[in-house]
């Protein structure tokens, strides 16, 4: 078996003239939990479809659990997949849904397996209710339960908490966290919610325009982002003058730069309000954006910066797996 549970090598995929993935390479080791973030249309769902063999790459190679993903059903024997738009027949009970999945996967003691995954996702009490009466959160947890049937090597979760209320999100996180902690299942999870990725994942890859813009350890990336808060103000006056003003009047401003018509400041957390007040005092501010440190800053730099900055990120972090 390959040393990686998931391997993508220079994968390209286009739909007509639209390029979904443009040279993506990535490795995920056994037992790792890796997050996949990116804007809508960045190629996340396409990547999942390639991994389970629903799509084939135009170029490059995709290997999952040691097998080429093009093997389709043979790969899905090892993979638990929760698609973004999972649904179930409303007249079936949760138990019936899971029993069917266990049957197809050739599980011997289906009752036992079903009971176990029901307990894992916290649906044991609702197991015999029709799925049509489930809440959104219960539906997603049932989806996760179907993915867990048969103890897969690899778990692929596509936007698993989209549309859930905070309690549903928290419950879902608890399940995935305990899976990661107690088993050696390999998890690839996509999300728009960056704190979710920070909480659940060891590593993160930022997809942008079909490429891996940034990839690395969550902890490393957070360190890179630093402890300073980013304040970007659009000003009516001369940005250079405003930047100099702020730098002179507020202590704790690590960096103040002009990027007409904006002023970009990196300030320590406890002087953010001082900096904002100083900006206000200049009387020239049109708009202000404050970004807390962490993955959000990394993400913003990766997908929200100018083309030049993006290219620099891509050359530094994209195009290859960390391993």
């Amino acid at each position: 078996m390959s040393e990686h549970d998931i391997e993508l090598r220079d994968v390209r995929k286009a739909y007509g003239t639209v390029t979904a993935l443009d040279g993506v390479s990535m490795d995920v080791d056994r037992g790792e939990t890796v997050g996949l973030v990116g804007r809508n249309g960045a190629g996340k769902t396409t990547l999942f479809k390639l991994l389970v063999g629903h799509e084939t790459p135009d170029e490059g190679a995709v290997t999952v659990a040691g097998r080429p993903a093009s093997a389709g059903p043979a790969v899905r024997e090892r993979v638990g997949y929760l698609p973004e738009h999972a649904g179930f027949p409303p007249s079936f009970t949760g138990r019936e849904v899971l029993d069917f999945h266990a049957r197809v996967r050739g599980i011997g003691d289906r009752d036992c397996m079903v009971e176990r995954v029901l307990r894992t996702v916290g649906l044991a009490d609702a197991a015999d209710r029709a799925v049509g009466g489930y809440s959104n959160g219960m539906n997603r947890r049932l989806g996760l339960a179907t993915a867990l049937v048969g103890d897969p090597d690899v778990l692929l979760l596509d936007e698993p908490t989209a549309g859930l209320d905070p309690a549903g999100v928290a419950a879902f996180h608890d399940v995935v966290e305990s899976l990661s902690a107690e088993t050696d299942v390999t998890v690839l999870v996509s999300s728009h919610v960056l704190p979710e990725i920070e909480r659940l994942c060891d590593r993160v890859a930022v997809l942008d325009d079909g490429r891996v813009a940034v990839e690395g350890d969550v902890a490393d990336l957070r360190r890179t982002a630093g402890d300073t808060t980013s304040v970007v103000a659009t000003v009516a006056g001369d940005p250079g003058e405003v930047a100099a003003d702020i730098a002179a009047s507020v202590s704790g401003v690590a960096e103040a730069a002009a990027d007409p018509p904006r002023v970009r400041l990196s300030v320590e957390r406890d002087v953010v309000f001082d900096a904002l007040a100083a900006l206000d005092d200049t009387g020239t501010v049109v708009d202000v954006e404050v970004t807390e440190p962490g993955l959000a800053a990394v993400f913003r730099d990766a997908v929200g910066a100018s083309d030049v900055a993006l290219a620099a990120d891509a050359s530094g972090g994209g195009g290859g797996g960390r391993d």
Partner: protein
Amino acid sequence: MEVVAVTDEPPARDGADEDTTPAEHTAADGGADGTAGAASAGTAATASAGADASHEAAGVTGTPGVLWRTAVGTAQVAAREYRLSVRRRWVVGVTVLFALFSTSLVFLGGSSVGPARTNAVLASFAQVGVYLVPLAALAVGFDTVVGADESGSLEMLLALPLTATSVVVGKYLGRAVALTGGLLAGFAVGGVLLVRYAGVGVLDSYASVALAAVAAGCAFLGVAVLASTLAAEKTHALGAALAAWVWFVLVHDLVALGLVATLDLPSWTVGAAVLLSPADLFRVLVLRTLPTTAGGIAGVLEATSLGGPVLLAALAAWLVLPVAGAVLAFGRRAV
């Protein structure tokens, strides 16, 4: 640790045939056993020892193993689809519809004039059934694939190690069994009444009518599944199913007869036209057993050389080809 490995090599969805050795995926220690402690106690032995029949066969690789796994997967999907059809009241609906249909025809055609008119009653089954059987089948089948796609349940099916063939054929078979059950139960109600009027001697002919209705129904169900696979939205599939009904039931005969009459085509073209419509095949299969002529294209079949085997072969083709087309179309469908 629970063992879930299935050690054969089913075919890829895109048809690629992988010929690798059996997976050695016996147990990933400490795998995704999310429940700690007691929940898992005793699971390991039972789960690992409890390989079912499909699992037993999994040691076989290559074509026989692939075919076996596809057959097992198809049966599993069919059983699920049948259960869904029952819960959606399709079976009850079809039963009630055809119970009303058959009892009405028997009552109206047979009660007052007695056994002598039996053939006329059966002929009326062909003439009226040709409208109703396709309609019921198309209604049962039009949302088979696109409906599951819209609800997200198709994507969940495809998350499993099932082939496209298993999904499409399994869904078709499940609904076909439901449709067949409903048709036969409905016909049985009218059959009881008919036997009361005409005696048990009529049962042979009546059973032929019912079986022809089942075959035609399943052929139209295949057409509906094909439409459902090609359609991007459920409303498109419904439109396509209605268009198919209008074509096969109302327009096809008119066009065929019009062409034959206008262009003075040879008589075999009439036979060919019959073979091109499962509705006509149903009508002809029923009418050819009765000493009665009837309207539509069937009425002029005396001049053609359509024998029973040809008609049955054509019906078999109608049963197989639309579903085969749906399997092919499914491979290109973006789910």
